[in-house]
């Protein structure tokens, strides 16, 4: 079998992957860096992020406040040493992106403009119109074109990590264009494959978010952390699940129930004011807003539509000028996909799965317990987001931990000998598995789409916004059954050339593994914290559960959950309080300088 060799291999070419590649190339220009992505890098899901990226920028703001907002937003499950490093490096990373050409919005005097965002006490979210992720990803991608050491494997699908001698030595990947299956050897592998929203039926996530990296790590023996924490974003369009950015609420949008009432005031989120108040009402944290929606449904105060219950997002009072200046993409999406003009009409929205707080367990430098394996971005769980992520923390997370993982992997790779060829045998095994289980198999009875649909329905019923023991247990049982039925899958497409059906089958396999770990972790955590709400254990239990759930696969294939205490440095666990007095929202016109 053919094999190519590099020093560092990135799986995934989104925000975190490209940032890590650049970081590694800058640390040591002699390293050979491969970016292996199943889609072209500019198609990565980073591109769809809209709202913004948080980094302390104003003189009246401080790193401690950003850290506190993040930690309390995460319901104290965030590792505080990681958060402290994150808030310190975030402004530097965003500034570096500006130097690379990112078109951040500006104040009239030319300095970076920031805006308010959910859960943040001060205005610190940098933004590029309402297409921040798009501009960040394209800036990163265009910048990587400058670096010769970065070699791209576009549209190569990684099916397995190669592990030998206790360390990761590369991957097996299919070149989608030709169908060729090949080992790509590397001294260090960084997973940057993003989250797993497609495990759920209704999600903002693209088709490509199947938890590939999480499943690859789990199968290779690396642990996953905090898998039960799944974020529901409160405002997604019904049917498509397209995201209406939190920025719409940050600019002043109201959330109204059936009676035109700003219902969030009933849920300990403050008093309704005409202008947005930070950390209050519509600018509260996402988990609380989504939970409020479920309660409104139970009270019968939501609007029924053919695509489920919705509430309304009201932007009419913002005026056409502001909407065109600050929220043009939101207007375009509403008009196109909902046939509604937000300037004049109410937008129907409902909670939609958006982000995965959990993921591959890494330390503060992106290293997993498995030697040679690193992870960064949504696929990783460091953890800075804890039990609930604040909006605009994810894009700087990709940059900060992408850069850290890139540097750490570069240093690790510089100290390693070239991997031995023993893994090539594993690669041949993988090729045989793919051929016998999928490509050459003709006698299966199951169809990919039907198993996938059943998986999604099961996961939504068992691990939705509110969970309880019985449905979680039933769900895990159903998933076991689906894993068995998955072995009996038959493909229509047996060709080699660009076989997207094979790709879907492999992705479904990854998703089933990830779904199992979500349900198992949720079943074991007998408390309610952040995005994980148990109706049978409605309170937070710091005594037993101020810890990350760490899930690993045993040799026999079953999953084992253990707990790892959260690192607390300066902020002892407290009450999450939202809806305080309105804070002065001045527009101090100064730059960043040193904070």
């Amino acid at each position, binding site marked *: 079998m053919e094999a190519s060799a590099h020093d560092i291999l990135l799986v995934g070419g989104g925000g975190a992957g490209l940032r890590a590649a650049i970081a590694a190339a800058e640390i040591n220009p002699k390293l050979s860096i491969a970016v292996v992505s199943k889609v*072209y890098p*500019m*198609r*990565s*899901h980073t*591109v*769809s992020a809209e709202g913004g990226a948080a980094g302390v920028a104003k003189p009246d703001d401080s790193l401690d406040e950003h850290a506190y907002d993040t930690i309390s937003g995460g319901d104290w499950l965030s590792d505080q040493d990681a958060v402290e490093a994150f808030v310190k490096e975030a402004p*530097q990373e965003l*500034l*570096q992106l*500006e*130097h*690379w*050409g990112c*078109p*951040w*919005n*500006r*104040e*009239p*005097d*030319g*300095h*970076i403009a920031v805006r308010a965002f959910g859960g943040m006490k001060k205005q610190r979210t940098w933004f590029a*119109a309402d*297409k921040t992720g*798009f*501009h960040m990803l*394209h800036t990163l991608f*265009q*910048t990587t*074109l*400058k670096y010769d050491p970065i070699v791209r494997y576009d549209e190569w699908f990684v099916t397995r990590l190669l592990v030998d001698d206790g360390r990761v030595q590369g991957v097996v990947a299919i070149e989608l*264009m030709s169908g060729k299956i090949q080992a790509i050897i590397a001294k260090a592998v960084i997973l940057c494959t993003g989250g797993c929203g497609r495990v759920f039926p209704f999600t903002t996530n*693209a*088709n*490509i978010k199947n938890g590939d990296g999480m499943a690859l790590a789990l199968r290779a023996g690396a642990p996953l952390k905090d898998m039960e924490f799944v974020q529901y974003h409160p405002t997604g369009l019904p049917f*498509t699940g*397209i*995201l209406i950015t939190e920025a719409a609420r940050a600019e002043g949008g109201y959330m109204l129930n059936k009676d035109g009432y700003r219902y969030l005031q009933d849920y300990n989120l403050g008093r309704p004011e005409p202008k947005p108040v930070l950390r209050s009402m519509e600018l509260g944290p996402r988990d609380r807003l989504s939970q409020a929606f479920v309660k409104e449904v139970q009270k019968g105060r939501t609007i029924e539509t053919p695509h489920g219950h919705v509430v309304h997002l009201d932007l009419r009072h913002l005026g056409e000028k502001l909407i065109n200046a600050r929220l043009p993409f939101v207007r375009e*999406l509403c008009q*196109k*996909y909902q046939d509604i003009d937000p300037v004049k009409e109410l937008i129907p929205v409902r909670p939609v799965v958006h982000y995965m707080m959990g993921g591959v367990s890494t330390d503060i430098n992106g290293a997993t317990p498995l030697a040679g394996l690193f992870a960064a971005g949504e696929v990783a769980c460091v953890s800075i987001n804890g039990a609930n992520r604040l909006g605009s923390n994810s894009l700087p997370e990709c940059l900060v931990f992408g850069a850290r993982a890139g540097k750490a992997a570069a240093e690790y790779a510089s100290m390693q000998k070239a991997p031995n060829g023993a893994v090539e045998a594993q690669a041949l095994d993988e090729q045989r598995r793919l051929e016998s289980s999928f490509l050459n198999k003709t006698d299966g009875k199951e*169809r*990919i*789409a039907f198993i996938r649909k059943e998986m999604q329905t099961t996961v939504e019923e068992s691990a939705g916004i509110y969970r309880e023991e019985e449905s979680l247990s039933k769900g895990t049982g159903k998933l076991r059954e689906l894993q068995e039925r998955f072995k009996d899958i038959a*493909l*229509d*497409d047996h*060709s*080699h*050339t*660009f*076989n*997207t*059906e094979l790709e879907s089958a492999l992705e479904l396999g990854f998703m089933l593994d990830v779904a199992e770990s979500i349900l198992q972790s949720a079943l074991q955590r007998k408390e309610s914290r952040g995005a994980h709400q148990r109706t049978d254990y409605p309170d937070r239990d710091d005594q037993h559960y101020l810890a990350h759930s760490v899930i690993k696969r045993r040799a026999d294939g079953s999953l084992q959950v253990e707990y790892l205490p959260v690192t607390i440095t300066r902020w002892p666990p407290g009450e999450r309080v939202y809806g305080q007095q309105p804070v002065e929202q001045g527009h101090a016109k100064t*730059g*960043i*300088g*040193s904070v």
Partner: protein
Amino acid sequence: MADKITIEVARYSPERDEKPYFQTYKVPVHKEWVVLDALNHIKDTEDGTLTYRWSCRMGICGSCGMMVNGEPKLTCATFLSTYARFGEKIRVEPLRYFPIIRDLVTELGDFLAKLKKAQPWLIRTEEKPLAQGEYLQTPEELDRYKQFSMCINCTLCYAACPVVGLEPIFIGPAALALAQRYNLDSRDEGAAERTAHLAHPEGVWGCTFVGECTRVCPKHVDPAGAIQQYKLAAVLSWLKSFVTPRGQDI
């Protein structure tokens, strides 16, 4: 509106076929369905061999460009009802002027090489250290190039441009618009360097201002406008070079 619509899809598998042919399917019509939903329905329930690219389904990733009834479109933003209303058939083909790998999947390596030729990064003689903060840029300066920075690389403009079809060496609308985006960025100092490579028949001067690229662009980038502006700028800087000494920038 009819409850079913006929879709003709171009098929091609290099392992079996010598050239593309059409296969017909019937798909239910829902008010909210786009062409992409129809293709997914076929692939999930009827024919798993149907091959195409897609990802975000909200018009921002640029994966799902295809020819729909002869027009380059993003299939995630093209509603079935537009065609079903008039009892039309829908014909889906891969984007024009690109080599076809399989079914509706085109080869994009050449396009990416062309993007790189535009040198789409900030070129500066001296980098400002991070500790000194950001490069100042007023909202007016941002507005000058903002429109050209909206390109999602969907390549619909390449499928619309006859020059791309007739002269494959032409660098194309998206690449030139991207070059102009950086030329107009107040933080960039590399316009001369880029223009040295692009003021050629396969670059800017290959464009004959057909204007189709601008018409089909789903993000209103106006690449045709960018290219004509670039032509003007290239001519002016060429004239200036006779007056000013080498390397001087007035």
